[in-house]
């Protein structure tokens, strides 16, 4: 089977609606295009492969003899340039405007001070307005709880605590009496005198004095 027949059969199975063999190309080509193309191309190739490198070489030689060729500068340009630049520089320095720095800096200080005062003022006001945090600060929590209770309740709580502490002292007194029953009173006094505890105990509450007695 020829290649043409093979492609025809393939097309018949894939897309029988397509014409086979392919119809002629409808595009037009300028008259004599294919006849002239080889000569046109060879001319271009000669230009690109021979004339262009030769031209570039000659341009390079010309440029080495005359720097910047084909561009030109005004006569005496390079001799005059340093003088011109220095003259322009001197003119530029004398003509520079004087900037009033002091006025500007005073204004800046005033603005900075106003901003700082505003920040501190707002901070202070905010702090005063702030509600004490009773959940994280234990002191505030205690204050808050005390405020919630009535004065009578607090008084009765304090009295109850005193009664409890009196009971405790009574218990201690009995215990101490039990422990010191075999010890001579003089020995105890001597010990207290040696350790200066006697003077301290005389200034304490009645309960404490009772213990010594």
């Amino acid at each position: 089977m020829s290649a043409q027949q093979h492609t025809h059969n393939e097309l018949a199975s894939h897309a029988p609606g397509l014409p086979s063999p392919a119809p002629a190309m409808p595009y037009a080509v300028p008259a004599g295009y294919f006849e002239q193309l080889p000569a046109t191309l060879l001319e271009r190739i000669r230009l690109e492969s021979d004339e262009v490198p030769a031209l570039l070489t000659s341009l390079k030689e010309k440029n080495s003899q005359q720097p910047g060729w084909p561009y030109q500068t005004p006569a005496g340009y390079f001799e005059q340039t340093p003088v011109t630049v220095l003259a322009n520089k001197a003119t530029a320095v004398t003509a520079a405007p004087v900037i009033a720095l002091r006025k500007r800096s005073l204004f800046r200080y005033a603005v900075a001070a106003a901003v700082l005062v505003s920040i501190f003022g707002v901070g202070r006001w905010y702090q005063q307005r702030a509600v004490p945090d009773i959940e994280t600060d234990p002191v505030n929590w205690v204050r808050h709880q005390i405020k919630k209770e009535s004065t009578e309740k607090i008084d009765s709580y304090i009295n109850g605590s005193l009664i409890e502490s009196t009971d405790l002292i009574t218990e201690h007194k009995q215990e101490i009496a039990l422990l010191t029953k075999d010890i001579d009173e003089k020995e105890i006094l001597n010990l207290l005198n040696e350790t200066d505890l006697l003077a301290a105990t005389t200034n304490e509450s009645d309960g404490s004095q009772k213990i010594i007695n």
Partner: protein
Amino acid sequence: MADQSDNEILLRFRVPATREAAFTDLLKKYQERLYWHIRRLVVTHEDSNDLLQNVWIRVWNALDKFREESQLYTWLYRIATNECLSFIEQQKKKATLHLSDEENGMERQLKADPHFDAQKLEWKLQLAIQQLPEKQRVVFSLRYFDEMPYEEMSKVLETSEGALKASYHHAAKKIERFLLDN
């Protein structure tokens, strides 16, 4: 026979004295096939002429280094195809910059041809080809118009034969549908 002629041309091209004559023979042998391959992808004669000349300049510069591992015409088609795909890519970028649609641009150029006749099958076929993505357009063109074997096509496009068969099948179906609908 054709291979022998290509080899003769190559041998003459490597001799400076016969270089230009050999190149002219090569041009005469393949210029029309390459031209039509290019023209089917880029539509206008002006673009086709520019691309064809660029292809031949590349051939001139690289023919000395051509290794006879593949057939000369496969190598020529490969250069021409790459040149066309680069050109189409550039046109698409330009169209994006100008916020226009390049696919429609090709179709517009086709319809602007002075000989365009929407009723004639050959023009309808060219219009249908312009609806394909550019690589599928190349596959369809090489197989349908140039009747190139898949083995050679795989060398031109550096794609497996299986992928090319599938691509051609899809392209043929799309074109058939377009012709039936229009």
